């Protein structure tokens, strides 16, 4: 598939597609971070994760409309506020869902899958009723448009770089929260041994709810980032759920670093191959490679424990 390209051209193509893949990378990392917390740590298979992301995307869309109409002077800054609101909206919905649904199912992980799938159907229908079946797009502020031209052939989209730095920041935050805060320690204690954690005085129900809410909230931020790479429709989230689960499993369910590596590998290989093959074949090859590797190495790229 490389015939007819010189080495310099190939280098530029890889660089261009690599930077173009940054936005996809960011969305995957943010989605997967939330899922790594919910699935990797809590063991809940949240099939509605994509719908939490889309909630964030819709909130961003509403924000962009609101600022464009009422506060055009502040429009350039709306994205940051939108992300915050997206986080809050998805996190509140997450807390509600945990209270109403998930907390009854901690002992039946496979059943969380069915129940959250039902939830995702309901959310999709709600989005369709509220926002309409048509996909909506977001207007980006000027400073996020355009790209740096590094050389004649290589251009880097500004929004991709912005989202990537944001993603790295959030990842660092999650890492700090997970491994350095007392809350994160409590969460990991609850996951490892719920009864014992309760016995030493940890309020396990509260920790569960907050953890689930944070995971969903990060998905909401992923939704904000998502508005930069695609238009938002009621079923857009479903397209990402398989990729996200694969990212988490591929990276090693308990490893945050593994999650980032696998998101990077998956998004970059897809983005690069898209240049040479059709989009669908790029995706097939990427997913097939991941599945094959997982069959050979089921514990994922990085695993903290050999067997749970």
């Amino acid at each position: 598939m490389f015939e007819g390209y010189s080495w310099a051209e190939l280098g530029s193509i890889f660089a261009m597609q690599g930077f173009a893949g940054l936005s996809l990378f960011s969305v995957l990392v943010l989605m997967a971070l939330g899922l790594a917390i919910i699935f990797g740590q809590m063991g809940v298979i949240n099939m509605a994760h994509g719908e939490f992301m889309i909630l964030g995307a819709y909130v961003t869309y509403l924000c962009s409309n609101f600022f464009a109409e009422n506060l055009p002077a502040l429009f350039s800054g709306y994205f940051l506020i939108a992300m915050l609101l997206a986080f809050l909206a998805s996190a509140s919905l997450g807390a509600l869902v945990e209270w109403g649904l998930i907390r009854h199912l901690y002992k039946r992980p496979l059943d969380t899958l069915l129940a959250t799938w039902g939830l995702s159907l309901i959310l999709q229908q709600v989005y369709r009723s509220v926002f309409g079946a048509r996909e909506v797009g977001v207007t980006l502020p000027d400073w996020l448009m355009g790209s740096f031209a590094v050389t004649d052939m290589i251009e880097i989209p500004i929004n991709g770089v912005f989202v990537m730095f944001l993603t790295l920041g959030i990842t660092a935050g999650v890492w700090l929260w997970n491994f350095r805060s007392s809350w994160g320690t409590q969460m990991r204690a609850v996951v490892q041994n719920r009864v014992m954690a309760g016995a030493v005085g940890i309020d396990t129900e509260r920790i569960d709810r907050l953890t689930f809410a944070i995971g969903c909230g990060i998905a909401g931020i992923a939704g904000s980032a998502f508005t930069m790479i695609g238009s938002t429709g009621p079923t857009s989230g479903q397209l990402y759920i398989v990729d996200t689960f694969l990212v988490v499993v591929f990276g090693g369910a308990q490893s945050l670093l593994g999650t980032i590596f696998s998101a990077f590998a998956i998004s970059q290989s897809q983005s690069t191959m898209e240049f040479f093959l059709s989009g669908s074949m790029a995706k097939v090859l990427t997913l097939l490679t991941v599945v094959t590797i997982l069959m050979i190495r089921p514990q994922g790229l990085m695993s903290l424990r050999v067997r749970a």
Partner: protein
Amino acid sequence: MSSPTSRAFATRGEILAFATLAVLLLAVLPASMEIFRLNLFGKYLTYAFVAIGLVLCWGYGGILSLGQGVFFGLGGYCLAMFLKLEASDPEATKIQSTPGIPDFMDWNQLTELPWFWVPFESLGFALVAVVLVPTLFAGLIAFAMFKRRVGGVYFAIITQSIAAILTILIIGQQGLTGGVNGITDLRTLKGWDIRTDEAKLVLYYVNAFLLLGALVFCHWVLGTKFGRILVAMRTREDRVRFSGYDVASFKIFVFCLAAALSAIGGAMFTLQVGFMSPSFVGIVPSIEMVIFAAVGGRLSLLGAVYGTLLVNWAKTTFSETMPELWLLAMGGLFIAVVLFFPNGLAGLWQSFRQPLMHAIRRHAPAGSVVADAAPEGGTR
């Protein structure tokens, strides 16, 4: 589960329940609706093959597969390929630039039949492939996973990914597979027109008999020692392994069996509906099939059939009258089944039947009280 002392093939209650279903499928449904509706129910019944396969591998074996649509689809595609080749003889396709190949290949500038299509000109090969291709594929997946002791959630996610991959592949390779429209416009099976009302009735009965046969077979499988090991594995896998059983082989077998059942369902689907498309392969249909089994009761073979019929009938009715409510109803159903009725319709029936039977027995004369009171009374 019959009590350990009675080794009979089926208890009286089980035979009665099976006979009721047989009468419903073979007499009540065909007599009560016109052929269009009956064909619709025939379509639902093809999903029931998948559902009873899921009862075996999920309900009894504890292996949740989210990729049953893959096997349903592969089975359906294998037969559709044969039917499509029969429908595209050089005479019928003479207006194409390359006569004798399926129309969608011609539209995609293919000039000869791809190699993997060639054997499907033979009906015998196609029929063998219907069962063998999905079963071998399932065996490959299961072998890779279970020999490495991967199971549970991971297995569910991998099978789901495979469903996604296969869908994208089929849609992407339009010239080879018919793309998103699938393989359509199927006409005859060895010269026998499958589109007439009469053919639809015959196919409905073939399907119903196959399904009843599959139910008997699965019931037999569950009654053997294999069925007991399956349950033991679901409960305490490590203890079964320590007792010297090769756990992985049992899992591979039950997963292959479920795949073969799904494939038969897929082939019958193709025959009755007249086309096969990727929309029956992917993530959404695969999860819906799990729901059929869950609604019916994951431990009940007969329940799975009723669950499939009920959910699909509700789906058709809802989407005809108020499509916007359907997703809400379906979503609510999932949540309700998981939260409140983990054993589905069969569980509900069980808890309703027990007091009823007691009441009947109390009123019956003392001599006629039957001794078939298997107290734990699990359903099949």
